[in-house]
């Protein structure tokens, strides 16, 4: 008689589609902020529930005093294929940012303030990270009105329960 190990019964059936995502935006450069916004908007377009959690310099995307002036990082950005020494020249970051914004407008990607409004209107919930808010000495008044709440990491995980978490 041969003994075979019994296969464990699958406990739950994996759903075939993604129903919910929670996206973390942790960087404050143009190229650090856009991917998260595009993914959140793309999720809503597919009928997927989406939350955005802004932490560290990612908070700049929802700060009233900063979200209109987000720039491309021209130093230490190998993707630009130019020496960082050029990237430090005055006005260079603004120039690259302008060029990139023009390209994005061509394919109908909105500027960050309009994009924040678009995703919020689409039903994406926006949260600011409490640890960072405390660290930078900020308050709720520093953020755009679309921000729903300032929450801790623990609360973020609670909100994200049952979904996929994406860190950008």
């Amino acid at each position, binding site marked *: 008689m041969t003994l075979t190990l019994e296969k464990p019964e699958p406990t739950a059936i994996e759903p075939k589609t993604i129903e919910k995502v929670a996206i973390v935006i942790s960087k404050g450069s143009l190229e650090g902020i856009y991917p998260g916004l*595009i993914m959140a*908007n*793309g999720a*809503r*377009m*597919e*009928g997927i529930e989406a939350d955005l959690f802004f932490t560290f310099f990612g908070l700049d995307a929802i700060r009233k005093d900063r979200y209109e002036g987000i720039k491309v990082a021209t130093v230490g950005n190998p993707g630009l294929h130019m020496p960082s020494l050029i990237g430090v020249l005055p006005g260079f970051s603004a120039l690259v940012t302008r060029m990139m914004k023009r390209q994005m407008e061509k*394919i*109908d*990607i*909105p500027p960050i303030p*309009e994009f924040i409004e*678009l995703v919020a*209107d*689409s*039903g994406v919930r926006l949260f600011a990270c409490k640890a960072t808010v405390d660290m930078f000495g900020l308050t709720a008044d520093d953020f755009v009105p679309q921000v729903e709440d300032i929450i801790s990491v623990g609360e973020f995980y609670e909100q994200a329960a049952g979904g996929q978490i994406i860190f950008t």
Partner: protein
Amino acid sequence: MTMTLIADSPIDLDAEGFMTDSSQWNEQVAEKLASENGIPELTDRHWLVVRFMRERYLETGTAPSIRSLGKESGVPVKELYQLFPKGPAKLAAKIGGIPKPRGCI
């Protein structure tokens, strides 16, 4: 691709249920596609969006982005998601008898 009969007209659909020949479309077809996709009744506001999507596609060859849909259709983004909770651009394209929008925005 499958062929189905909607409101007595033969309709070609792709694997995701989007019409592959927009000339086969008519209002009865739209109503049937809507009810099969979770929208039991098309209101005037639904029609506004569906017609805008369809006309823009027929004019330009591409479906509008959610951004231009919200700005130009006459229905703001918030309401678009109330009308089509499972994705306004995708659903309005499906109901309007045009291919699935390929854009990321």
